[in-house]
C-alpha cells in the first residue's frame, strides 16, 4: 500500500472544492479549452479512430507478453551501458533512487514532470536524504513552490488562476508586485530554473514509453525541460511503471500520433526526447550514468485482475477534462496521487479497494471518459466492478448494503413493488404542495435540498392500464 487511506468523506472534500470560486473558474476555463482543442485535433485527423484501435491492440498484445518485452528492454538498456532496477513497491523505488543519489554524491536533483515519481512520493524521500528536488515543468514548479500536489495528470497546476500564480511567485521568489501575465511569470520561472539545471547533479524523469527493441526511453514534453534534465546532470534516473514498455519504434509512431492530440490537442508535443543510455565516447552531451527504475507497485497483479485495462493508460488526462465530476471538484478532492476517472482505478490499483469506497461512486457513469480515452479504456465498467468489490468485501457501509438488498427484494416481487407505490402515495401526502415535493426528511432530503421531486403518481401507469 503506497498511500494511507483518507478518512475524510469524499463528500466533504468535494464540498470544499465546490465552495472555491477560483478553482471553479480555473477548472472551467482549462477543461473547456482542452476539450475543444482535442475535438479539433481529432476532427482534422481522419485516421484518428483507427489509430486508437491500433494503439489499444498494441497495449493489449504487449500486456500478454509483458515479461518478454521487459526482458528485451532490460537487455537493450544494459547493452547501451545503462543500469536497470526493478522496484516491487514504492518504498523499494524510493530506496533505489536515494541510494543512487548517495553513491553519486548528489546534492540537487532537477526533475522533469513525472506522475510515477509523484506516486512513490519521491520528493519527500530525497529531501530527507539531503538531496534538494527541483521540479522544472512549469506547472510542477508552481505547485512545488505552493507546497501542493498535482491536481491533474498533465496540467498539475490547473487549479490555479494566473492571478494566484503571480501572488505565489511574488511571495516565494521574493519579487513583489509581479503582474498576472503568463509570459512574464514564465520568464521568471525560466531564469530561476536555468541555474538549477546547470548546477544539479541528478536528473530525474518519468517515461511516456520505453521501446523494448532499442532500449529507448521516450519523454514527451512541451517545455524542453525534459531534454535539459536528461542531458545536463551527471546522472539520469528514469522512473516508469512496467506497463509503459512497448515493443517497437513502429508502435511508438502509433502512440505519438494520438497522445498529444488527446492530451492538449497538439499534433505532436513540442519536444519528443529519445534517450538511449548514458553518454557514449565522442558524444558532447548526456549523463555519465543512466538508470532505469521499473516500477511494479500493484501493476503486475492487475494483469490478471479486474483493473487490467487500466494498464493501457497513456496518462494523457483526456478523461479528466471531459469528466463532469472532475470539472466540478478538480483533482485535489479525489485525495490521492491520480485524480479523475482513471485516477480512481489507479488509486484502487495502488492502494487497494478500501481506498475507493467513496471514490468508486465519484462518477455518474456518463461514459464521457471512455469516449475520450485514446486507447478506449472502459472506465465506467471498471468503476462498477470496483463498486461490486467494495460491496462484496463489506467495505461499503452495512446500511447501504441492506438498502440495496431490500430494494432487490421488492423489485423481484411485483406485489411488493405495487405496495411500495401505494405506501409512497400515503407517506408523501404531507409533503406534496401543488404537485411537487420540495422537502423530504431523512435520506430523501439529499435530493430535495436542491431539487424538487415529483410525487408518486395518483395512479401508476400499470394501475391505469389495468383499469382500462
Amino acid at each position, binding site marked *: 500500500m503506497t498511500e494511507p487511506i483518507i478518512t475524510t468523506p*469524499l*463528500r466533504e472534500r*468535494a*464540498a470544499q472544492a*465546490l465552495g472555491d470560486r477560483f478553482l471553479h473558474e480555473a477548472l472551467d476555463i482549462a477543461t473547456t479549452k482542452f476539450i475543444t482543442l482535442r475535438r479539433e485535433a481529432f476532427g482534422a485527423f481522419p485516421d484518428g479512430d483507427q489509430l486508437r484501435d491500433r494503439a489499444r491492440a498494441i497495449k493489449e498484445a504487449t500486456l500478454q507478453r509483458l515479461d518478454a518485452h521487459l526482458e528485451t528492454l532490460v537487455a537493450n538498456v544494459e547493452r547501451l551501458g545503462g543500469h536497470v532496477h526493478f522496484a516491487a513497491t514504492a518504498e523499494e523505488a524510493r530506496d533505489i533512487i536515494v541510494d543512487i543519489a548517495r553513491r553519486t554524491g548528489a546534492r540537487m536533483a532537477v526533475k522533469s514532470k513525472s506522475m510515477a515519481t509523484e506516486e512513490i512520493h519521491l520528493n519527500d524521500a530525497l529531501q530527507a536524504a539531503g538531496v534538494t528536488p527541483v521540479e522544472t515543468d512549469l506547472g510542477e514548479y508552481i505547485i512545488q513552490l505552493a507546497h501542493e500536489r498535482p491536481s491533474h495528470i498533465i496540467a498539475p497546476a490547473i487549479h490555479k488562476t494566473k492571478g494566484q500564480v503571480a501572488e505565489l511567485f511574488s511571495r516565494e521568489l521574493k519579487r513583489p508586485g509581479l503582474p498576472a501575465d503568463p509570459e512574464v511569470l514564465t520568464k521568471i520561472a525560466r531564469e530561476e530554473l536555468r541555474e538549477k539545471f546547470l548546477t544539479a547533479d541528478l536528473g530525474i524523469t518519468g517515461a511516456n514509453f520505453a521501446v523494448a527493441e532499442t532500449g529507448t526511453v521516450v519523454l514527451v514534453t512541451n517545455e524542453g525541460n525534459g531534454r535539459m534534465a536528461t542531458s545536463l546532470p551527471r546522472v539520469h534516473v528514469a522512473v516508469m511503471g512496467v506497463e509503459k514498455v512497448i515493443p517497437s519504434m513502429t508502435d511508438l509512431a502509433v502512440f505519438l500520433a494520438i497522445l498529444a492530440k488527446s492530451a492538449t490537442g497538439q499534433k505532436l508535443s513540442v519536444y519528443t526526447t529519445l534517450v538511449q543510455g548514458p553518454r557514449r565516447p565522442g558524444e558532447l552531451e548526456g549523463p555519465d550514468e543512466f538508470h532505469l527504475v521499473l516500477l511494479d507497485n500493484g501493476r503486475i497483479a492487475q494483469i490478471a485482475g479486474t483493473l487490467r485495462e487500466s494498464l493501457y493508460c497513456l496518462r494523457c488526462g483526456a478523461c479528466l477534462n471531459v469528466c*463532469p*465530476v472532475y*470539472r*466540478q*471538484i478538480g483533482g485535489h478532492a479525489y485525495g490521492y496521487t491520480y485524480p479523475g476517472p482513471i485516477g480512481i482505478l489507479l488509486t484502487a490499483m495502488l492502494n487497494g479497494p478500501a481506498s475507493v469506497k467513496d471514490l*468508486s*461512486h*465519484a*462518477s*455518474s*457513469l*456518463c*461514459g*464521457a471518459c471512455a*469516449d475520450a480515452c485514446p486507447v478506449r479504456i472502459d472506465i465506467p465498467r471498471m468503476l*462498477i466492478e*470496483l*463498486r*461490486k*468489490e*467494495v*460491496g*462484496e468485501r463489506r467495505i*461499503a457501509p452495512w446500511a447501504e448494503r441492506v438498502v*440495496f*438488498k431490500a*430494494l*432487490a427484494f*421488492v*423489485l*423481484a*416481487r*411485483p406485489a411488493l*413493488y405495487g405496495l411500495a*407505490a401505494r405506501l409512497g402515495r400515503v407517506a408523501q401526502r404531507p409533503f406534496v404542495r401543488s404537485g*411537487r415535493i*420540495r422537502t423530504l426528511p431523512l*435520506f430523501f432530503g*439529499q*435530493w430535495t*435540498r*436542491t*431539487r*424538487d*421531486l*415529483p*410525487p*408518486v*403518481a395518483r395512479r*401508476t*401507469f*400499470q394501475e*391505469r*392500464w*389495468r383499469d382500462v
Partner: protein
Amino acid sequence: MSAAPAAAPRVALMITCLADMFYPEVGERIVQLLGRLGVEVTLPAGQTCCALPLFNSGYHHEAATVARRTVALFRDADAVVVPSGSCAWMVKHEYAGLLRGHAEAEDAARLAERTYEFSQYLVRRLGRTTFESDVQGPLAYHDSCHLLRGLHEGEAPRVLLRELKGADVVPLPGSDECCGFGGSFSVRLPEVSTSILDRKLANLEASGARCLVACDAGCLMQIRGGLARRGSPLRALHLAEVLR
C-alpha cells in the same frame, strides 16, 4: 404458421419504474402515438425495474434476480419499446453478460436484439420520422448519456426533431454533457450532482429554448427538479410528449 404480410406490428412496452411511478403520462403518450401509427401495444403484467440501479451500484447478484424476471416477462414479445435510454442500455448491453450461466441467458440475448429505445423504435424499426409538434416555442435536445454513448444513438431523436412540423429546434451547447443524475450518484454526492446540473441549466438558458427534450426519465427527473426549484419558466419534456 405464416404471418399475414400486412399484419400490424406488435410491441411490448417496458414502462420502467420511473415512468410507471412518476411519469405515467409519458407511457400514455407512447401508447396513443403508437396506436395512431397502427402498432398494437401490449403491457406484460407485473413489471418492476430493469435493475440498472442495482447493477450500477455493484449489486450484480441481486440485479440478476430482477433481470431474470424481466427477461421472462418479455420472452414472447416481437419487439420491446423502452422510454428511457438508460434502461434500454441495461437490457441491450448488460443483461446477457449478467445472466451468463443462468437458464435465461439465451432469452436475454434475444431480448437485447429486439429491444428499442422509443426514438430508435420509431426511426429504426418503423421508419417513421415525420410528426407534428405538440409544443410551442423553441426546443433543444439533451443527449442522455446511456443513449448517446451507451447505445451510440444521437441521430434518431434528432431526425425526429428536425422533421418535426411546426417546431423550432435550437442547438443546446454541451448537449452531450451529463445532467448530473447518474442514479444513486445524485444522492450520494448531491452537491456535485447539483453543480453539474447547474451547468446543464445554464446551457439550456443560453440556448434560447423554451423547452428541453430528452429520452430518459432519469435526466428528466433531475432537470425538471432543478428547473422547478429555481422557479424557471422553462420546461423539460420527454420526446413522446412533444410528438403528435
